[in-house]
């Protein structure tokens, strides 16, 4: 179309950004081919939003470069803004105005004529199932409807590259599924999408490629299947109802798994990667748990989830991370698994 370049839609090399002492990005590389979906996965404070803010020209990087649709985000910020759409973590709509007014306003700011702004708003309201609510103030909308309106607003200018920063955070499960469906249909229309999320199932569901970010670095990249493969086969998981016996149970199965079992003391859930020897490990686990006379619930083998991947890569579960950057340094050294994983992907 207007840019005949055959390069990727998004290219990021060695991007760094610090806020005072906090190193939000420590040199990340990304490539997103046109028409594909990249899921950027990481806990709160990992640097996802910082990366999106740089790519959408809201923030200047300290080092490295970022190219969107062939334009450098620093030197050609205005051109980048003409090709992108952004929908952030909170619904950036004017709640006092109606859905229609919100979209018409955005249309006008994209310099559409009034008739065109009206037509475009009506199209999007229809597409996002908001026609019935079009003339109501947006503050009367449900959370899911507000997000849909916000997403619709980011599409008014028909962006080639869309950035969705945690598009379903805070939504109820039904609205989440609805959002996923809408995102899938957008992607089917050829839009390149960069999506950040804390939800591992969301990346699994929507993304062609996934990068895992932790502490401002890419610690793993690949397809969902590739990442799951890194956990090394199946995961054995069960719950110990008696919280006092959790550590006994962990000890009992310690020799069965490949690597240390992960124990959640609060919920009593224990899981451990068992590689390719699934059924054999299952039988052994039953025997040794029985031998230690630990009662369990729901002992089963399952395919690894991205939660397991995150755990294997970082040594902590994604949800364990608290927002903000205060205690980052401490956590880094908690388990050596994290730094091994970093070495593995940096090559």
């Amino acid at each position, binding site marked *: 179309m207007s840019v005949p370049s055959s390069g990727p839609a998004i290219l990021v090399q060695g991007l760094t950004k610090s806020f005072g002492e906090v190193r939000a990005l420590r040199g990340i590389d990304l*490539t997103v081919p046109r028409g594909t979906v990249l899921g950027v996965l990481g806990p709160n404070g990992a640097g996802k939003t910082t990366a999106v803010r740089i790519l959408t020209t*809201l923030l200047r990087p300290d080092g490295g470069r970022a190219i969107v649709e062939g334009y450098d985000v620093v030197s050609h910020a*205005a051109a980048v803004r003409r090709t992108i759409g*952004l929908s952030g973590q909170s*619904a*950036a709509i004017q709640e006092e105005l109606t859905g229609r007014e919100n979209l018409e306003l*955005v249309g006008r*700011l994209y310099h559409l004529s009034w008739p065109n702004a009206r037509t475009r708003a009506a199209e999007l309201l229809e597409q996002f199932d908001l026609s019935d609510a079009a003339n109501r103030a947006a503050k009367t909308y449900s959370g899911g409807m507000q997000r849909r309106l916000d997403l619709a607003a980011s599409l008014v200018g028909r962006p080639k590259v869309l950035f969705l920063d945690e598009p379903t955070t805070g939504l109820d499960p039904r609205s989440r599924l609805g959002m996923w469906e809408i995102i899938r249909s957008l992607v089917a229309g050829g839009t390149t999408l960069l999506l950040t999320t804390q939800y591992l199932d969301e990346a699994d569901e929507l993304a062609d490629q996934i990068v895992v970010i932790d502490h401002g670095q890419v610690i793993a*990249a*690949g397809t969902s299947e590739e990442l799951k493969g890194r956990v090394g086969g199946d995961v054995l998981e069960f719950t110990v109802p008696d919280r006092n016996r959790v550590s006994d149970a962990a000890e009992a199965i310690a020799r069965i798994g490949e690597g240390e079992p992960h124990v959640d003391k609060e919920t009593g859930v224990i899981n451990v990667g068992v590689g390719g020897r699934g059924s054999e490990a299952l039988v052994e686990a039953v025997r040794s748990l029985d031998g230690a006379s630990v009662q369990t619930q729901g002992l089963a083998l399952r395919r690894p989830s991205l939660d397991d991947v995150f755990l294997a890569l970082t040594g902590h579960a994604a949800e364990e991370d608290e927002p903000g950057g205060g205690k980052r340094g401490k956590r880094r050294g908690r388990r050596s698994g994290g730094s091994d994983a970093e070495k593995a992907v940096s090559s």
Partner: protein
Amino acid sequence: MTAVAPAAGAAAPFVPSGPSLLTRAHWAVIDTLTITRRNLLVWMRVPAYIMFTVIQPVMFVLLFRYVFGGAIAVPGVKGGYVNFLLPGIIGQTAAFATFGTAIALAQELQKGVIDRLKSMPMARSAVLAGRLVADTIRMFITIVIVVGVGYLVGFRFENGVGLAIGMIVLATVFGLAICCISAYTGLAIGDEESVQAFGLVWLFPLTFLSSAFVPIQSMPGWLQAFANNQPVTYVINVMRSMALGGPIAADLWKSIAWLAGIFIVFAPLAVRAYKRAS
């Protein structure tokens, strides 16, 4: 996929020739008007905003006219306290209207509206300019309403139509100057509640410790020293002289100097805070 050959994708980015300065100025004006229209629409939709900007000043007029007014002596003022009061209340109203500016900008910042607008191919100056234009229009409407209510309770311009208009213009320019300060505080603080609290801390003393509601001679000496030498007093003295007659020139020059100073300092600060805001 992170493994990117250094040269990949570096293929000379297509560089569009930027639009001409004239085109950009044209769109900056259009974008400002679009944002202005949005802000005025929002204002009309929220009963609390109407309450804050229209009903509250009217209540102040009635309160001071009928409750406190009887106890406040204003020797030598033609028409008595109601005439003394109105220019003061208009100045206070213009200053307090800028609470709305600070709060609205802080809200937009918090909610990510400013981020969204900044990521769009619109003139970046339009968000701030549109806010100031809309709030000035809003302020002007409020001033006209207060003058109307003033007429109902006995206020009269005593110095001709020209100077009456001059007074309203000066009040509006004064309000716009305070608006720049408020815009800066709203963007720099960026949190609605703090902005509101901070607004009270500086706007209350500045407007009440002035000649707005009572003759300064009635204050204790140490307070007179402040009240006599602060910009709100200069501006309100000029407004009062324009409305009722009396010497204008001396305080007018001081007012102009102060207002110019406020614009020169706070307009760039507000722009800088807007650029940095995130």
